[in-house]
């Protein structure tokens, strides 16, 4: 853009040639035009010229300012200023080069993917593995059933560890917390272990027995549940240990319900991660979730639970047997989580009874699982990094005035962010994605479904990275 300045003299010449009048006339006219405008402005009037704009005088109020050099406050006097507002015609003509651009709301699409979806990023991917993990766990559980009691004490360790590392389907909310804060949340860990243990003894003894295991383990943490908040439970349940049990029992078979609660949880967790001091708060939220689950349980399975209690009271002898099991389990928990030992020992004085020597082996299992997770994550990463070849095409589109790659992407892939792949496939025809000449034929490529998974925030993020790459370059 050349910044040549045109003087009044040149203006006069141009007017003269345009209307084929003498320069003298044009000059006189121009002079009188602006002196007329000036006079009108001095009178405080505004002057409106068709197809050009409006001149107006504006009073600028005196204001305070600071002398940059001395730092003292100075007052800038009020003054008059001529403002010129161009006519809409002129304004549009001037802005022609940028007329096609429209303001874009960013919050609609991009921002949520960073602020809200990001915390969830980890969950969907790990959950994908979880289906595999879940089946593994099932296998292990069936193995356990056939094994002796001592081995039972060992196997739960694996299952529990998996739960911790890979965010188990059944109780994701606990696990998310567990990953972040191992020490504080061992209370929850113990509870999760109950869930895992639960199915194991059942084949051997009666249905009521699992409950007996839980009682001693849960009892120390019982006070943390504000009883005032669960009056419904207390009406139905006589035993003081029962409430916690219901919550867990109920949450386990209903993964969907708990998971919906969890989706809001990671958001909080993401922040908490850095602030260890707030771990306590997270624990409290978990407790609230459990209570919510308990209330849910009492509504939907109160009758079932009642049967359970009665059954439980009858089988006193079974209870005695299972107490032994419970002690051994507790012993394991305290030994495995040495950080928490003090706390756990305090609450469970008879915990050190039997510590299986094979416990040492368990860490290796967990490491393998972690590797598993990273491998699957890498496969997606590899997919992103690998060079994309486009051989198959879904169709062709002719770019007309107003058509953009994003609109085509929206039509074919369901998400406008994936326009970058169309651009990649048509790089020979398109110089810059923002400047496509109308009439260009664009081939819409067939892209790997995993790349254009609009539900996967990572795909969106990748597309955005590519977007920045392509739009940024000139």
């Amino acid at each position, binding site marked *: 853009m050349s910044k040549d300045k045109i003087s009044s003299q040149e203006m006069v010449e141009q007017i003269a040639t345009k209307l084929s009048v003498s320069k003298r006339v044009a000059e006189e006219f121009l002079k009188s035009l602006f002196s007329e405008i000036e006079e009108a402005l001095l009178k405080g009037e505004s002057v409106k010229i068709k197809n050009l704009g409006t001149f107006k005088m504006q009073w600028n109020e005196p204001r305070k300012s600071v002398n940059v050099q001395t730092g003292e406050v100075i007052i800038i006097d009020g003054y008059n200023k001529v403002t010129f507002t161009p006519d809409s015609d002129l304004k549009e003509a001037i*802005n022609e080069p940028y007329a096609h651009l429209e303001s874009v709301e960013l919050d609609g699409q991009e921002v949520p993917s960073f602020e809200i979806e990001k915390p969830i990023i980890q969950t969907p991917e790990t959950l994908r593995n979880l289906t595999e993990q879940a089946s593994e766990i099932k296998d292990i559980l069936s193995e356990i059933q056939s094994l002796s009691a001592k081995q039972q004490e060992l196997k739960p360790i694996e299952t529990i560890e998996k739960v911790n590392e890979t965010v188990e389907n059944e109780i994701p909310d606990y696990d998310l917390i567990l990953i972040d804060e191992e020490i504080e949340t061992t209370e929850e860990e113990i509870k999760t272990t109950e869930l895992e243990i639960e199915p194991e003894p059942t084949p051997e003894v009666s249905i009521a027995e699992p409950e007996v295991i839980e009682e001693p383990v849960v009892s120390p943490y019982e006070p943390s549940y504000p009883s005032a908040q669960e009056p419904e439970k207390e009406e139905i349940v006589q035993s003081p240990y029962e409430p916690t049990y219901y919550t867990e029992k109920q949450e386990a078979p209903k993964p969907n319900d708990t998971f919906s609660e969890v989706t809001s949880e990671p958001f909080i967790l993401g922040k908490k991660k850095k602030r260890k001091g707030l771990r306590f708060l997270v624990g409290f939220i978990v407790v609230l979730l459990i209570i919510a689950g308990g209330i849910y349980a009492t509504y939907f399975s109160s009758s079932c639970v009642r049967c359970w209690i009665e059954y439980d009271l009858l089988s006193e002898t079974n209870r005695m047997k299972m107490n032994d099991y419970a002690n051994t389990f507790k012993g394991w928990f305290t030994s495995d989580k040495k950080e928490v030992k003090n706390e756990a020992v305090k609450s469970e004085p008879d915990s050190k009874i039997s510590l299986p020597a094979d416990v040492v082996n368990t860490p290796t299992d967990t490491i393998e699982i972690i590797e598993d997770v990273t491998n699957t994550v890498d496969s997606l990463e590899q997919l992103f990094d690998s060079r994309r070849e486009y051989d198959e095409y879904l169709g062709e589109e002719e770019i007309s005035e107003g058509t953009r790659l994003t609109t085509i992407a929206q039509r074919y892939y369901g998400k406008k962010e994936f326009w970058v792949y169309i651009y990649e496939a048509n790089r020979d025809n398109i110089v810059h994605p923002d400047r496509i000449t109308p009439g260009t034929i664009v081939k819409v490529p067939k892209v790997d479904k995993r790349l254009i998974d609009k539900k996967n925030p990572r795909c969106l993020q990748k597309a955005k990275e590519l977007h920045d790459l392509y739009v940024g370059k000139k």
Partner: protein
Amino acid sequence: MNHKELISKLALRTNLPKTEVEALLDATSIIVKEQLLEGKIIGIQSFGSFEVRKKEERLSVHPATQIRTLIPPKLVVNFKQSNILKDKLNEIKL
């Protein structure tokens, strides 16, 4: 003062018929527009200058809804008064 008033005043001042004044005025505004489109600065002696300026794109945040909006760049006509005019205006007010 609107367009018509301006024409009649100019006609009085220049002793030209209104139609001619109107033609001259139209020509002036057309030339101003053309020159601005070419990216030139139009300086009018003792009055001021017209210039096209580019307003860069920016991110605006709606204070109430917190919705962030990307405002695209645009070209605007900018008028800067000359110091002579400025002084005259201030003399009047003070």
